[in-house]
C-alpha cells in the first residue's frame, strides 16, 4: 500500500503534554508509503473522525494509522469512520502512543522519539494488511440465566416477556436466592417475600422460561450466538413431574433435626424437604448425606407415604444439553465467614468476636431469619442459646469489609443500610429493648437512604457509636462487648444478650470455576469483571456473556434489579439480530502446505481445528489437512506458534506483518 494516512491525536493534554505531536506528525510524514500526516486535539471527536473520513476520500487513502490511545479504547471508532468513507475497516491500525508512551514517560524528547517508532511499526503493519470481511454467524434466540436470585429472576422475566426463550439454572432446590430469606427491606420496610414470591411464581409458570432447579452448569462450549451448555441436574430423588408438593413426605420423615441451609442453621429441616413454603418449584429434594434410606437402606417412610409415587431412591445426576445464544450470570453472594476457618489463606476471620464459639453471636443473614415472619421462630426474636428475648442487642458493621488486615479492603456497601434496618426491626419487635450499633462511617447514599438511617437513630432510638469492637467475651450468659466510641473518646463496654455481625459480602462459592468455564474475568476477590466500569457495566470481555447482581460487586436489591434489567436489554439487542458478526481476525491454515501432523488440533484451546481431507472434484483423495472452524476460532494464535510447517497464520496479524514491524525498528 502506498497511500497511507497518519492521524496523530493529542488526546487533549494526555499525549501532547509529553509527546511533541507536531514534530511526530512531521517526522512520520516522510515514512515510505505515507501520503498524508495530520494531528488534532481530539481525534475521536466528531470533527476528528470527519477529518479521517475526509482525508480517506480526498487523498484516496488505502491504509490508515491512528496514533492515539489503546485499540481497546477506539479501534472500533476509527474502523467505523473508515468504513463510512468506503475503506475496508481492517486496513485501519492503531499506534498506541498514550498508554504505552505518553502516560509512562516524562522525558519529552525521548517520548517523542518513541512515539515516532511506534507509528513506524504500525505503518509497516498497515502496508502488509489485507482487506477482511467480518464473519457472520447465526443466533440461537434463547438466553441462559445462571442463578435464580432476585437479579436472575428479573433478567429472566425481562427477556422472556420480550418474547425470547430463557433457560434458568439454579443450584439450590428453589429459586429466590438470598432475598427470599430476608425479613423486610430497606428503605421502605416492605416485606421481602411479599414482593419476591409473586415474581418467583411468574418464573415458575412462564411459558418461555425453562427452569432447572437443583442444577449446575457443568460445561460451556461454543461462542456468542451459539453456546452449547451442559447442565448437571443433581439427583433429587423426587420425580418433579409426578410430585404434587403435598408435603406428606417431609411431614413423615423422622430425621427432622438437620440444620436448614435456608435458615442459616437457625432452624431445622427434615432429610426430605423444601427449603421454605413458597419455594419454586414447590417440590422437595432428599439430602443424600442425611437420608437413612440412601445411607444404609433403612427407613423409606416417605416412599410408602407418597401417593403420587414420586419418590425415586435410584435417582442419579443427569446431564442435559441446552443451546443458547447469550448468557446472563447472576450467581449472587455469600457472607464472609467470621469464624477462624477460612477458604483462602489471606483471610483470617475474627477470632476476637467468638463467632461459632458463642451461640448468641450471629451474622446478619441469621438475624434476618430470626426476625422474619416465615423464619424458624415465626418472627419472634429469640436468641439462639436459650430462646430468651434479647433486651440489649449490639450490631457491629464492617466485619470483614474495609479491613486490609483481614483481607477484604472493599466496602460491602449495603451493611450500613441493613444494620439500620435491623436496629429498627428489633425495636419494633422488642419495645423495651435497646439496639447499639458500632460503625466506621455511615454510608447511606441512595434515594431515601440517609433519612432511613436517621429514623433508626431518632425515632427508634438506636444508639450509634463510631468505633470498633475489640473483643467479645461471655460471662454469666451475657456477651461482654468492649469497643470504643471515638467521637466521645471513651471506651465502651456493653453487656449484650445478642450480637449481630454485619459480615462482608463475598461472591458465591464456585464463582471462579464458573468464570473459567465461561471464559470471563474475575478480580482477586472473585467478583466478576465488567468490560468497562462506566460504559459497559453489564458486559464481560467475552461476547454474549453478561453479568447482573452481587456476583459483580456488593449490591443491594434495587441496584441488582436495575443491573439485571440492563443485562436483559443487552441480551435482547443481541437476540433481536438475524445474525451476529464476529471479528475476522482468526487463524487460517494453508491446506496445500499443511503436513497433516495435527499438532494444532491437539493444542487449540477452543477445539476450533478439525482434521479433514482434500479431494478432487471427482472425490479422489489428494491429501489430509487441518482446517479452522471460523465459528469457534478465537484468534489466539497458538496454532501459529506450534505449526512446524509454517502453514498456520493469523489473519490481520500475519507472520509477515509481525516481522515487518520488528524489522522497522532495526
Amino acid at each position, binding site marked *: 500500500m502506498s497511500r497511507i494516512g497518519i492521524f496523530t491525536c493529542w488526546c487533549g493534554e494526555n499525549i501532547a503534554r509529553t509527546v511533541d505531536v507536531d514534530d511526530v506528525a512531521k517526522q512520520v510524514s516522510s515514512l515510505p508509503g505515507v501520503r498524508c500526516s495530520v494531528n488534532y486535539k481530539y481525534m475521536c471527536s466528531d470533527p476528528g473522525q470527519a477529518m479521517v473520513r475526509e482525508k480517506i476520500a480526498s487523498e484516496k487513502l488505502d491504509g490508515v494509522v491512528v496514533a492515539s490511545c489503546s485499540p481497546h479504547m477506539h479501534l472500533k471508532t476509527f474502523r467505523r469512520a473508515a468504513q463510512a468513507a468506503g475503506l475496508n475497516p481492517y486496513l485501519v491500525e492503531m499506534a498506541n502512543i498514550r498508554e504505552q508512551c505518553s502516560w509512562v514517560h516524562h522525558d519529552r524528547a525521548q517520548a517523542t522519539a518513541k512515539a515516532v517508532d511506534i507509528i513506524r511499526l504500525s505503518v509497516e503493519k498497515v502496508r502488509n494488511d489485507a482487506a477482511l470481511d467480518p464473519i457472520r454467524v447465526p443466533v440461537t434466540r434463547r438466553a441462559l440465566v445462571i442463578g435464580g436470585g432476585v437479579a436472575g429472576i428479573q433478567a429472566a422475566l425481562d427477556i422472556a416477556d420480550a418474547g425470547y426463550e430463557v433457560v434458568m439454572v439454579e443450584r439450590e432446590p428453589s429459586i429466590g436466592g438470598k432475598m427470599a430469606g430476608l425479613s423486610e427491606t430497606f428503605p421502605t420496610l416492605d416485606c421481602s417475600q411479599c414482593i419476591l414470591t409473586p415474581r418467583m411464581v411468574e418464573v415458575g409458570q412462564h411459558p418461555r422460561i425453562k427452569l432447572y432447579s437443583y442444577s449446575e452448569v457443568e460445561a460451556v462450549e461454543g461462542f456468542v450466538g451459539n453456546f452449547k451448555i451442559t447442565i448437571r441436574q443433581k439427583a433429587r430423588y423426587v420425580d418433579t413431574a409426578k410430585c404434587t408438593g403435598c408435603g406428606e413426605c417431609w411431614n413423615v420423615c423422622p430425621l427432622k433435626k438437620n440444620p436448614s441451609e435456608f435458615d442459616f442453621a437457625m432452624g431445622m429441616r427434615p432429610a426430605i424437604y423444601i427449603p421454605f413454603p413458597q419455594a419454586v418449584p414447590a417440590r422437595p429434594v432428599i439430602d443424600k448425606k442425611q437420608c437413612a434410606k440412601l445411607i444404609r437402606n433403612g427407613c423409606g417412610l416417605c416412599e410408602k407415604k407418597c401417593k403420587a409415587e414420586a419418590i425415586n431412591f435410584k435417582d442419579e445426576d443427569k446431564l442435559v444439553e441446552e443451546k443458547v445464544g447469550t448468557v446472563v450470570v447472576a450467581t449472587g453472594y455469600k457472607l464472609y465467614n467470621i469464624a*477462624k476457618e477460612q477458604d483462602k489463606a489471606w483471610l483470617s476471620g475474627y*477470632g476476637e468476636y*467468638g463467632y461459632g*464459639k458463642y451461640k448468641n453471636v450471629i451474622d446478619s443473614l441469621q438475624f434476618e431469619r430470626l426476625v422474619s415472619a416465615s423464619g424458624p421462630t415465626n418472627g419472634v426474636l429469640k436468641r439462639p442459646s436459650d430462646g430468651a428475648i434479647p433486651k440489649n442487642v449490639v450490631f457491629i458493621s464492617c466485619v470483614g469489609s474495609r479491613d486490609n488486615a483481614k483481607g477484604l479492603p472493599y466496602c460491602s456497601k449495603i451493611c450500613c443500610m441493613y444494620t439500620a434496618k435491623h436496629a429498627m426491626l428489633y425495636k419494633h419487635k422488642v419495645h423495651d429493648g435497646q439496639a447499639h450499633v458500632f460503625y466506621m462511617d455511615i454510608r447511606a447514599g441512595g434515594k431515601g437512604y440517609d433519612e432511613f438511617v436517621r429514623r433508626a437513630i431518632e425515632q427508634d432510638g438506636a444508639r450509634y457509636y463510631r468505633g470498633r469492637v475489640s*473483643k467479645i*467475651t461471655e460471662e*454469666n450468659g451475657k456477651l461482654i462487648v468492649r469497643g470504643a466510641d471515638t467521637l466521645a473518646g471513651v471506651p465502651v463496654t456493653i453487656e449484650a444478650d445478642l450480637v449481630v455481625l454485619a459480615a462482608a459480602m463475598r461472591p458465591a462459592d464456585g464463582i471462579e470455576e464458573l468464570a473459567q468455564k465461561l471464559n470471563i474475568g474475575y478480580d482477586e476477590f472473585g467478583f466478576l469483571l465488567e468490560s468497562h466500569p462506566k460504559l459497559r457495566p453489564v458486559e464481560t470481555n467475552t461476547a454474549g456473556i453478561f453479568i447482573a447482581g452481587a456476583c459483580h460487586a456488593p449490591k443491594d436489591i434495587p441496584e441488582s434489579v436495575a443491573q439485571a434489567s440492563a443485562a436483559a436489554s443487552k441480551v435482547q439487542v443481541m437476540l433481536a439480530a438475524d445474525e451476529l458478526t464476529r471479528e475476522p481476525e482468526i487463524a487460517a491454515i494453508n491446506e496445500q502446505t499443511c503436513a497433516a501432523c495435527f499438532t494444532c488440533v491437539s493444542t487449540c484451546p477452543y477445539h476450533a481445528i478439525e482434521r479433514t481431507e482434500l479431494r478432487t472434484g471427482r472425490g479422489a483423495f489428494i491429501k489430509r489437512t487441518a482446517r479452522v472452524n471460523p465459528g469457534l476460532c478465537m484468534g489466539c494464535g497458538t496454532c501459529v506458534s506450534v505449526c512446524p510447517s509454517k502453514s498456520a497464520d493469523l489473519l490481520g496479524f500475519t507472520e509477515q506483518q509481525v516481522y515487518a514491524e520488528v524489522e522497522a525498528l532495526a
Partner: protein
Amino acid sequence: MNIGYYPGCALHGSSNDYEQSLQACLGALDIQLQEINDWICCGATAAHALNHKLSLALPARNLALAERDGHKQVFAPCPLCSMQLLKVQKAIAGNGLRAELSQIVEADLRGDGQILNLIQVFQTIGLDKLKAAVKEPLKSITAACYYGCLLTRPPEVVHFDDFEQPKSMEAVLAAMGAKTVEWSYKTECCGAGMTMASEDTVLELAHKILSNAAAHGANCVAVACPMCHVNLDMKQAAVEQRYNEKLGMVIYYLSDLVGLALGLSAEQLGVNRHFVTKA
C-alpha cells in the same frame, strides 16, 4: 539437648523464681540452657517509644551474639523478649534492614535461627515425650491458661497459635494430666509495666482476669510471662484488698506445673517463693 538461652532482664531480677523454675523443669527433661554471652536488654517497651531503629538495634545485637555463639535455637522465656528477637528477624528478612542493622551491631546478621517461647520449647521436646515422663499427674489442677497479650501477638511477627483463641498451653497441660477451663480473658492485657505508673489500672485488669478465671471454675492460673506473673501474683493481695474479695489464686509458671508433674518439688521449682502459695 543444648539450647541457646536469652534470659532478659526480668529473669535475672524480679522474676528469678521463673529462672529457677525453668532450670529445674528443663534440667529434669535433659535440656541444658546455654546463656548467650554478653547479652543486653532487649529494649522492652522503652526503646520503641524513643526510637524505632534503636528498638531494632538492641535485640539485633542479642541476635548477633546468639548467632556468633552458634545457637540454632534461642529460648527467650519472656514473650516480649522473644517478640523483639522475632521482630528483628522479620525486619532483616528479604534484606529489608539487614545491611543497616548488621553495620550497627558490627556483625553479619543472618536471622535464620529459631526463636522459641516456653510453650514452643515444650512442643520441640514433644508432648508425647513429656507425657511419658510424667510421674505425678496433675489431678488436682484445673488451670486457666493465661497467654497475656504478647505470647501470640503481634500475629504477623510471632506467628504463634490462634492469636485470639489460643490452645497450645492447654495441650501441654493436658499432657500433664491437668484439667483446663475455657474462659474469656486468655489473651487480655494484665497492665504490664503500668504496674509502676498506674497501679489502679493493673489492679482493675488483674481483678477482671482473676475473677473471670475463678468464675469459669479454675483453681489456678498458668502463665508463661514474667510480667503476667508479677501482676497476677505479687499484686493479688492488693487486688483482694481493693475489691474486698478473697481470690487465693495460685499463679504458676507453665514450667512449674510441668515440673510438678515430672515429680519435682515446689521448693526445687521455686513455687514456695511466690506471693500466693496456696488457695
